[in-house]
């Protein structure tokens, strides 16, 4: 079956993030000059304007900052997944990320709930992050 959802179009600056997910690693950009961690990946550090960057492995843990439960498919590819929960998660590295929840019931959702990242290989080329109960 062909994959019918929206897919990312990585650039040379963002490709390592997606390559990391395929290896079940959550990689974040870290400024090689001042050490600030940033997300989403982008060319320049907003603290020191350096374009020198290294990629670090995130701890893979986090806590819920907010969420939404989607009941309407704005794109036909997600129709079969309804309803699905999208989490906004604070990572201990100081940035946030967005991913779907798996195995977290609606009544358990609360600000501060600990979660951990997992990996969902949706195609041979694309692995998406998801969050599970910690």
């Amino acid at each position, binding site marked *: 079956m062909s994959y019918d*959802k929206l897919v990312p*179009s990585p650039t040379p600056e963002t490709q390592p993030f997606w390559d990391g997910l395929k290896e079940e690693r959550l990689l974040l950009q870290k400024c090689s000059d001042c050490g600030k961690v940033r997300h*989403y990946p982008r060319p320049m550090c907003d603290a020191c304007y350096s374009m020198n960057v290294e990629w670090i492995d995130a701890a893979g843990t986090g806590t819920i900052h907010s969420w939404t439960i989607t009941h309407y498919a*704005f794109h036909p590819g997600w129709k079969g997944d309804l309803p699905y929960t999208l989490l906004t998660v604070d990572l201990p590295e100081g940035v946030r990320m967005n991913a779907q929840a798996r195995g977290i019931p609606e009544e358990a959702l609360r600000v501060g709930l600990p979660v951990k990242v997992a990996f969902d290989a949706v195609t041979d080329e694309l692995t998406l992050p998801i969050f599970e109960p910690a």
Partner: protein
Amino acid sequence: MSSLREAGAITGVGETLYLRGTDRTALSFQLEASLNAIRDAGLEPTDIDGLIPYGHGAVAEDFITNFGIKDLRFSATTPMGGASAVASIQCALAVIDAGICNHVLLSLGRTGYSGGRIGTRVQQMPQFKLIGEFEMPLGAIAPAQLYAPMARRHMELYGTTSRQLAEIAVTTRQHAQMQTNATMQRPMTIEDHQASRMISDPLRLLDCSLESDGGAAVVISAPDRARDLRKRPVMVMGVAEGHPDSPSAITQRPDLTTLGLAKAAPKAFAMAGVSPDDIEVAEIYDCFTYIVMCQLEDLGFCKKGEGGGFVENGALGLNGRLPVNTHGGLLSQAHMAGMNHIVELTRQLRGEAEAQVTDAELGLVTGYGDMGDGSVAIMRRG
């Protein structure tokens, strides 16, 4: 530093009939609304010497071609989504104040209902590059889904409820029922809102704005020209735009419950020399009920976290403490990206609105868009 206070006045406003279903083009709506605004001012199309059309629509060439403008001196767009229309007021005042233009036309035409719907067009927009790559492939595609975590966070921090959001939808619908040109006229109760289907929790169908076909336009003129035109001018007293931290990726924004408007509002109030207590009518960009409530806080009508209580008990109605969206807004009149909010505030301050706030002399209009950009203009009857 000089100020744009009273550097321009709204002299003409125009709309088309608002629809949900058409075979017309967006350009024809934009030209019709523009012509209506120009005629409302008592001008001819060839008097227009500046253009700030809404993005993704008609361009200067369209107006020169269709209106036969011989000496266009300025054209630009303000790429801020739903904040563009009000931000264009600041841009228009700047070019008028610089002596470049006398009459600047702001305009919008769209087939938001009959043309491309919202869920399919966002990933391609350059300002959404980051969320297009890092959020949309996860299933977070449409504004309702991207804004819902802001509303959820506000609810968790401050105890805001869905019934409080319903108050905004219900009051706005009441105002739409008083209009001849509003697409949603059926009565709505808080229970109707609570029974409407969930779109992206906590936002229900009746928390969401419409997708509409039509056009709206505004003419802004130099003050010395404005006095001689057909209608009583409405003076711009204060205007500003504001861009939030992490402007497109809401996920990364330090405070999910604060919008770009929070940076713009103090500048506009200071320029106008008034405070929120002085405002008699407010047209607040209402793509979603929650965004209205959040802007009321960011404008300073109440403290952060108190918006839910502020909007209760019909407070936003014609006889409430702050009449809001007296035309029915994007929620119930039509989604004209806030150009219809400027049209309505102008009519309120002229005293010619269909749901008129008695003797309103000072009012405010906001724009909100592109995931958090904000704009605000404070205007006074001239």
